[in-house]
């Protein structure tokens, strides 16, 4: 049953480990070397991913807006984002005179670190996971909420009034939306009985939760997508940046590489929340099965698990991008109203329903 790609990934990792064990005898050194290799691979992967998502966003936006999108650099404009990165690299990374220089320079680092930390427990394919932590869901929700520190830091230290307002908005926004994200994640944890992402994926072997869990899980899926859009500060919840109001919000004063780090963190965050949504609600790398149709299920199994995972993730990324290019922005009080008057009460009732469903075994 093992599909080609997942098989090769795990065997590749094993081969690598064995080879390194022969070369390096010291256990500590071995671990460090392996961590460095994984880290570099991950970074390269994420940079490429950010490039891809940047390109994808431009094209998605362009097609929705009756435009062509990037079309000059490289075939179909694919290298546009590379050109932009090169430009950002060579741009002067100035620090405002009145800024708190230490915090100002530290903030992009913190934001990108929190974004990278959240990547760790995601299961990319069958048997391919960087860190199968048994409290994966908890870990992700706690790490991703740390982004608020970086944004507050960036906004406060810029010594810019717009940045400060943006940062303050961020505090209110992320803290509020944490709750809905947590509750919607809990509804699946209740059904699965485990916090480990791997267990959650395994529990969907006979059907994804979004199909198995009736309407309550559908509701928590919608709430998760909405709340995580707000959590990663993307339109229509991008009050933290709010170009038209705050001229860029917390990153008004940033330029060059530091700004590029914010941009990259945004795309990594986008990937992380979409990956988590795909893992938890859409079965992660699990193929699509229909009960009873054995032949169909076999065909589905031959599609590599990583392709399943990435296509589901991309689907959710697309949805979140479509939000951005369709809706106008909310006002700050409406944003908080949406959370406290709508999402939170609904998800609380929803968790109750899901719990009842789990106890009574009403799900498939």
């Amino acid at each position, binding site marked *: 049953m093992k599909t080609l790609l997942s098989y090769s990934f795990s065997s590749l990792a094993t081969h690598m480990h064995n080879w390194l064990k022969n070369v390096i005898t010291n256990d500590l050194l071995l671990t460090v070397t392996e961590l460095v290799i994984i880290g570099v691979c991950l970074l390269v992967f994420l940079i490429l991913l950010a490039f891809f998502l940047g390109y994808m966003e431009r094209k998605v*936006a362009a097609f*929705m*807006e*009756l*435009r062509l999108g990037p079309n000059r650099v490289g075939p179909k404009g694919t290298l546009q984002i590379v050109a932009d990165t090169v430009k950002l690299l060579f741009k002067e990374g100035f620090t405002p005179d009145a800024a708190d220089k230490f915090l100002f320079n530290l903030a992009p680092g913190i934001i990108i670190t929190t974004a990278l930390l959240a990547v760790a427990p995601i299961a990319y394919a069958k048997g391919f996971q960087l860190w199968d932590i048994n409290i994966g869901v908890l870990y992700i929700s706690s790490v991703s909420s740390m982004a608020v520190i970086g944004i507050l830091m960036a906004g406060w230290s810029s010594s810019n*009034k*717009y940045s400060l*307002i943006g940062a303050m*908005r961020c505090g209110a926004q992320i803290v509020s939306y944490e709750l809905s994200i947590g509750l919607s994640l809990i509804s699946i944890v209740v059904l699965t009985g485990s916090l480990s992402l791997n267990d959650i994926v395994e529990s969907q072997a006979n059907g994804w939760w979004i199909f198995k869990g009736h309407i309550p899980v559908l509701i928590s899926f919608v709430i998760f997508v909405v709340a995580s859009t707000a959590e990663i500060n993307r*339109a*229509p919840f*991008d*009050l933290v940046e*709010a*170009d*038209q*109001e*705050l*001229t860029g919000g917390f990153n008004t004063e940033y330029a060059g590489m530091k700004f590029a780090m914010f941009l990259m963190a945004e795309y990594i965050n986008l990937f992380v929340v979409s990956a988590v949504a795909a893992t938890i609600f859409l079965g992660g790398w699990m193929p699509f099965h229909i009960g009873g149709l054995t032949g169909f299920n076999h065909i589905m199994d031959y599609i590599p698990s990583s392709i399943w995972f990435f296509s589901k993730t991309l689907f959710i990324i697309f949805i979140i991008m479509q939000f951005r*290019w*369709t*809706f*106008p*922005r*909310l*006002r*700050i*009080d*409406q944003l908080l109203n949406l959370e406290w008057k709508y999402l939170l009460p609904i998800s609380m009732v929803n968790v109750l329903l899901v719990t009842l469903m789990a106890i009574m075994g009403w799900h498939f």
Partner: protein
Amino acid sequence: MLLGEEDHFNEEGEFVINIGPQHPSTHGVLRLKVWLDGETIKKVEPHLGYIHRSIEKMSESFSYRQFGYITSRMDYLSAHMNNQACALVVEKALQVEVPARAQVIRIILCELSRLSSHLLWFASAGLDLGGVTPFFYAFREREAINSIMEETCGARLTQNFMVPGGIITDLQPDFQKRIKEVLKQFKDNYHEYNEILIGNVIFQNRMKDVGVLTREDAIALGCTGPVARASGLSCDIRKHYPYDGYEKIQFDEVILTGGDSWARCEVRMAEMLQSVHIIEQLIDNIPEGDIVAKTKNVIKLPKGEFYQRVETARGELGVYIVSDGGSTPYRCKYRSPNFSNLMAIPHISKGHKIGDLIAIMATIDLIIPDIDR
């Protein structure tokens, strides 16, 4: 006055920020000094003059043929109406009868530019609230209108088509066909504006009950145009003081009583349809004949004072000419609609949030060169 001369907080603990002169949603170089309490606006003070070109002073050295052209650069979205006002004031002073053909063409072009101006309002209103996509949908139709302007008048924005006595050149042959195409395109796509922005619940919530301008305030502040009509004030110059044959045309003056940003949006959306309605009445009935009445080579206005108003896309534009009998105006004053409408912003944005200020600015629909002149 230097920017940021105040500290972050003044003595009352208010947070003072400058929105503009370089800000994405001031649509130009307007600077609003905003006193904030948290996110809530306590006071707004407009600072102008960043694009002041002293058009009134320049007009004093222009002949009566020349002084109209520069008004295209005031409210550049209502360039036809501005030129028309200048042409009309000269015609009124000289008591020239404008040929019927020129009048009809003037109205068609004015309504077309009103339509295009409201489309730009729609586009930028969406943009100001963070929705980029509506911008392109509106610009699709606006581009078609601009192409017609380009083909007929020779320029896309600063047309300079209306001269004292009539219009500058005759229409191009397939003018009527092109207009009909554009109107069809507009009517086919009109529902998309409702789907993408106007009907959107986020947009409606952003607009409803925001920036309520009462009828009394609209009068006292001198607001005109869609802003005042949304407050229930009947102020359409085309109805009250008809010019160029508007009295013969069937159309409704759109008046709503809400007074909030949402009413202003609805007025503009309805006015687009009214403009289409006017053009449809006229497009097949353009009379034959002269396009310009004979005037002297060097126009000299009789001694006296002349005031002419027209309804631009943003309200009442008044041209006040004081003539001493010479070939140039002695004094030329433009009563620009945006200058008065601007006063509404400090008045109605008190107690709202920063985001509301942007929404209010979007619905007041200011053109900064028209304010500064």
